[in-house]
């Protein structure tokens, strides 16, 4: 456990998105900060709560991601917003991204989440989101605590860095 001395930097991240691509920024920043002796709290709310499930089945959608371009045979293929309307396209995009992740030596989300747990990143699941979407605490990993906006606020007020992703 990190020594919470006077000089220890603190950071919180509010995690609101639950797709495969959006799962990366909070977990990369959270684990890296922890490795650099920063005390990290991650607050998972709304779709972000999906990232705390025991069984992760994360997907990526081209919908709402107009800047998405997938590398393909030395070129880049744009992913027009019309594409996810076609059955199977999101599944194909997800497979493509998972293959790229493996090929480029990028960590899986499972791996990064495990690293977060190992480095004592405090993870808070949002109680209201559990109620709202009728999610079961038992489907979430054990290493989290459940709380609300005030739980995050208490940490945020003491933190040097607060991010919303």
């Amino acid at each position, binding site marked *: 456990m990190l020594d919470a001395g006077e000089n220890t930097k603190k950071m919180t991240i509010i995690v609101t998105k639950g797709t495969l691509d959006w799962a990366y920024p909070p977990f*990369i920043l959270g*684990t*890296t900060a922890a*490795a*650099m*002796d920063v005390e990290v709290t991650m607050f998972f709310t709304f779709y972000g709560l999906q990232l705390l499930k025991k069984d992760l089945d994360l997907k990526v959608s081209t919908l709402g991601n107009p800047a998405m371009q997938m590398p393909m045979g030395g070129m880049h293929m744009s992913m027009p917003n019309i594409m996810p309307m076609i059955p199977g396209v999101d599944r194909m995009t997800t497979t493509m991204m998972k293959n790229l992740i493996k090929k*480029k*030596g*990028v*960590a899986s989300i499972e791996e*990064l989440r495990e*690293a977060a747990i*190992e*480095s004592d990143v405090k993870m808070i699941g949002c109680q209201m989101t559990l109620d709202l979407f009728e999610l079961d605490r038992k489907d979430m990993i054990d290493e989290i605590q459940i709380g609300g906006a005030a739980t995050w606020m208490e940490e945020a007020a003491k933190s040097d860095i607060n991010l919303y992703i």
Partner: protein
Amino acid sequence: MADQVLDAKGLNCPLPILKTKKALKGMSSGQVLQVMATDPGSIADMTAFCNQTGNELLSQSNEGDVYTFEIKVS
């Protein structure tokens, strides 16, 4: 001469940093860890990591696509 060697070749951000931290945790003060990485981002990142954590970056070099860092545990 390094006390421990970490092969982080082929790994991408932030894995070289996470694995470096893990390796340093198991070492004692004054010992030297040698890290080998192929991620070009690790040049800037390893320096920033050492600045922030107080471990000393003794040297960095590269041969072809491989970057080698020597870090002294604080």
